[in-house]
């Protein structure tokens, strides 16, 4: 594969999967800058090894696995406290147009959902994120993470159970 072909193939894979990879990274880390960093690193690794890696839809599994591992390593490195501090600086800004009590309620509820998601153990959260944001089925998630389909089913169930418990403690309202 010459340089031009290589860049062309990479650009196609990139255009196809970047949004998903970024969305999954952000859903796990809840930090825009870190998500950008992790997404870039995942695609950079793909670009460096793409002669030996699949293209098209198959590339998605590889990219998601790498970005998940990068996020996991980041989470281990920084720890929960550091992430909480960063989140306060990077959390999405309130919509200045949608004002009033309703907007405030929505904002608080979203924050509660974020907090609840963050309390779920990493392995469960990742599976749930891939299910919800990645729109992947159990088989695809298992393939991405290198775990069995049965294991994915259990993890999705447990993640939902825990999320439900945490959300029950706060009165969540997102219309």
């Amino acid at each position, binding site marked *: 594969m010459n340089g031009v072909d290589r*860049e062309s193939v*990479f*650009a196609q894979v*990139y255009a196809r999967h*970047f*949004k998903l990879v*970024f*969305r999954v990274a*952000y*859903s796990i880390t809840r930090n*825009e800058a870190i*998500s*950008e*960093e992790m*997404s*870039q690193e995942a*695609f*950079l690794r793909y*670009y460096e090894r793409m002669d030996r890696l699949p293209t098209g839809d198959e590339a998605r599994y590889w990219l998601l696995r790498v970005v998940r591992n990068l996020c996991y390593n980041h989470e281990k490195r920084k720890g929960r406290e550091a992430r909480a501090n960063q989140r306060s600086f990077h959390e*999405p800004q309130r919509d200045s147009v949608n004002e009033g009590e309703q907007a405030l309620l*929505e904002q608080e*509820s*979203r924050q509660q*959902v*974020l907090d609840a*998601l963050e309390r779920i153990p990493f392995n469960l959260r990742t599976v*749930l994120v891939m*299910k*919800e*944001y990645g729109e992947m*089925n*159990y088989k695809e998630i298992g393939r991405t993470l290198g775990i069995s389909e049965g294991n994915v*089913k*259990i993890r*999705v*169930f447990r993640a*939902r*159970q825990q*999320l*439900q418990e945490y*959300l029950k403690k706060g009165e*969540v309202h*997102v219309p």
Partner: protein
Amino acid sequence: MCPDKILLSRFYDKDLERSEMDRIRNHLAECGSCGEYVDALGEQSRLIHAVPIPSSSDKEARILDRILHGRTMWSRNRTFTFHLPVPIAAAAVLLFFFMTGLLLSRQLPFSGGADPGSPMAGGELQENGGSRENLDELLVGMKHAGFFDEVEMDIPFDMDSDIVFDPELTMASTAYPGGE
């Protein structure tokens, strides 16, 4: 009998065979508790998707450019840090203070506390300045204190000779066969 919740979770994800899906759907029509559980899963999913995710469109072009042109975020932001081992750093600090002290002591103006005969006394003696006078006074003071009285000198040459020479060297020279 109600299906277990894992099965309901799979039903919500449409991860069951058609016959199994139908069976649970029929059950949900009759069982309020299981119906509530499945509704809660739907609500949960809606809440998750209600959380805003920042737009990635601005980052997309930027990151692609960095990757294809080798300008990674790390190379752009990387700062060079040099880590020196602690023992070497400590030795360097000690050496620095030692050398600084040494240099300062050499540059100090001549004072009575230092040995006037020592090269460490430093400072140029100025003919018109006060340093030369101070030195004279100090030497006079030392003489009165008997500093020079106890000095003994061995003179290694013959005082009678017109030429000042070392007699031992002269003898060695004459004993040498090739010497004159």
